[in-house]
């Protein structure tokens, strides 16, 4: 009966109730989204690369190297010579080394030149290997392997031909039309930037940049000659070690390497540093959304408080019918609870909908892979906090109702 009374009372003031509801809906949604992006970004970042012990590139910053080699963001400021890759491959401590060459794109998706070893050695998440959903790794220079999202978005299948453009923009004025690539395989989704990448061989990258005449010559050569084509420069090398304890020793050796200017970073350390940078921004966002939340809770309390004046008559009637002052206090709390709970529920639906809609945009532009499932222990704790806070702020009008109840007269 109390619940029905509260519901009917809210309906009779539907305009101010609706506005309060909307303000709560927005602030709870902001709070949930920030928290959700925070936890998801952390997960998505830390699962991007696994099983790689060192990333070796040209000296810049470790974040820059990490961003372009793993997240496909930004551009390599400098290259390293191919001989450094040879050196790494022949190093006693090195179990495997995979070269990476960046700088081209296909319809906005980054193109990664690498060796077929990439598909066996690059891991993500909890040491999960890359899996082909169809086809297999490239064997010839002008063959390509598609990330899951690229294939899905552009509707590619194994056997299709694609043309790669120079530069990393979505629109390019220079297409390498003479050297079309044939798709040999499509990777299963990983939830990492791999999904957004077009993988080709180093030889392919080298070949498509050749002048037309040299390219014709190269393509008519035997496949052995073709595969022996070695680029002069590459962007970075992913390295796996035989013995993890050698990581720091090798890092120091590489940083002091005389034959080339090299920088070696530990992906885990760089990720942690990246995460720390993000964390301070997130803390600010979290604090702001907390304040927004607080102000709409005060709005709720103000709305209920303003209604108390119209309700003096009602309170007198309730007292006469035998309602205790405590019942009146509860009644206001129930009203606050109804509004807050429905706002919580609605904002769960809203954020779910928004993340479903915009997960692609977030992944394309920011490399953030956010799942639409906003339900998590943290969001449950947040929502519980919102409900408790709404009960606390609604105590102000509720105590007013209690006092009115004590002083109500016929």
């Amino acid at each position, binding site marked *: *009966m109390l619940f029905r*009374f509260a519901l*009917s009372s809210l309906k009779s003031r539907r305009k101010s109730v609706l506005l309060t509801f909307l303000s709560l809906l927005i602030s709870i949604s902001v709070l949930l989204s920030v928290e959700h992006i925070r936890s998801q970004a952390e997960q998505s970042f830390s699962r991007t690369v696994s099983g790689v012990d060192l990333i070796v590139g040209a000296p810049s910053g470790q974040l820059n190297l990490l961003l372009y080699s793993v997240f496909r963001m930004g551009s390599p400021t400098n290259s390293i010579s191919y001989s450094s890759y040879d050196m790494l491959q022949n190093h006693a401590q090195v179990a495997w080394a995979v070269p990476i060459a960046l700088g081209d794109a296909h319809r906005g998706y980054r193109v990664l030149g690498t060796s077929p070893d990439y598909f066996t050695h690059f891991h993500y998440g909890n040491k999960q290997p890359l899996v082909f959903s169809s086809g297999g790794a490239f064997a010839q220079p002008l063959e390509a392997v598609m990330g899951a999202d690229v294939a899905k978005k552009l509707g590619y299948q194994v056997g299709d031909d694609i043309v790669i453009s120079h530069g990393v923009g979505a629109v390019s004025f220079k297409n390498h039309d003479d050297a079309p690539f044939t798709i040999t395989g499509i990777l299963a989704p990983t939830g990492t930037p791999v999904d957004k990448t077009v993988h080709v061989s180093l030889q392919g990258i080298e070949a498509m940049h050749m002048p037309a005449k040299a390219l014709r010559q190269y393509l008519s050569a035997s496949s052995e000659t073709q595969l022996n084509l070695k680029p002069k420069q590459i962007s970075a090398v992913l390295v796996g070690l035989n013995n993890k304890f050698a990581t720091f020793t090798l890092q120091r050796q590489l940083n002091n390497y005389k034959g080339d200017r090299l920088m070696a970073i530990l992906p885990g350390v760089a990720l942690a540093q990246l995460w720390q940078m993000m964390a301070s921004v997130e803390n600010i966002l979290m604090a702001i959304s907390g304040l927004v939340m607080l102000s709409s809770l005060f709005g709720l309390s103000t709305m209920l408080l303003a209604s108390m004046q119209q309700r003096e*008559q009602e309170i007198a009637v*309730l007292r*006469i*019918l035998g309602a205790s002052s405590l019942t009146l206090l509860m009644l206001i709390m129930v009203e606050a609870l109804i509004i807050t709970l429905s706002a919580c529920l609605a904002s769960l639906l809203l954020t779910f909908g928004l993340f479903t809609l915009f997960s692609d945009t977030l992944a394309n532009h920011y490399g953030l892979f956010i799942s639409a499932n906003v339900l998590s222990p943290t969001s449950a704790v947040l929502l519980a906090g919102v409900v408790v806070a709404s009960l606390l702020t609604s105590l102000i009008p509720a105590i007013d109702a209690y006092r009115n109840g004590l002083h109500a007269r016929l």
Partner: protein
Amino acid sequence: MTAKIPPSSPTQVICVEHLEYAYNKQAPSFVLPKWQLEKGQRIFLHGPSGAGKTTLLNLLAGILVPQQGTIHLLDKPFSTCRDSQRDKLRAQHIGVVFQQFNLIAHLSVLDNIRLAAYFAKQGKQVDEHAFDLLHKLQLPDNIASQSASSLSIGQQQRVAIARALINAPELLLVDEPTSALDANARDAFMSLLLNLCEAHNTTVIFVSHDPQLASYFSQKVALQDLVTIKEPNHVV
């Protein structure tokens, strides 16, 4: 002090002794030495405005608590018991009809009546009983689902009677219920009210300053005869 528990059902509905009440220390106090009402008595209480009619009703309904003296309701202490106990006794044993605005505007007629039963913790057959009362008050059945604010004032006052009587209270307090009604509606209202109260053997205290209504009652009490207003003592 131990409470006296009567052996049989009480015939004394209300018993006021040595009552004194003042709104604050500077205000004149309202003094009622002794007043008793038996079951089934119907009293017309009249007096000029300012004589303390509303104060008396508030005290009898347990909304105000006297600073001195006691009120017993059905031989149970009413003014000296705990607040929650008083609220419960009021819900179960006292019905009230005001001048106006008796109903919760946003609830339906039926929910208004149910609300009274809810506070009295009377779960059983409330709807049946409510429709029965609405019938006796010559209100159509379909009025039950209408919102209280859509009714005419005459209808609202009749619904107020139904709500006041839903818990079959021993005491009904009525405060100028016809002040907003025209003569025809007033007569219809009075006879419906008194017939119902007679049928239920309800004690009625009917407060009005309208002498025309006195004819409906055999017992008339002037408030001035009952109550003295004492000016506050100015202690230096």
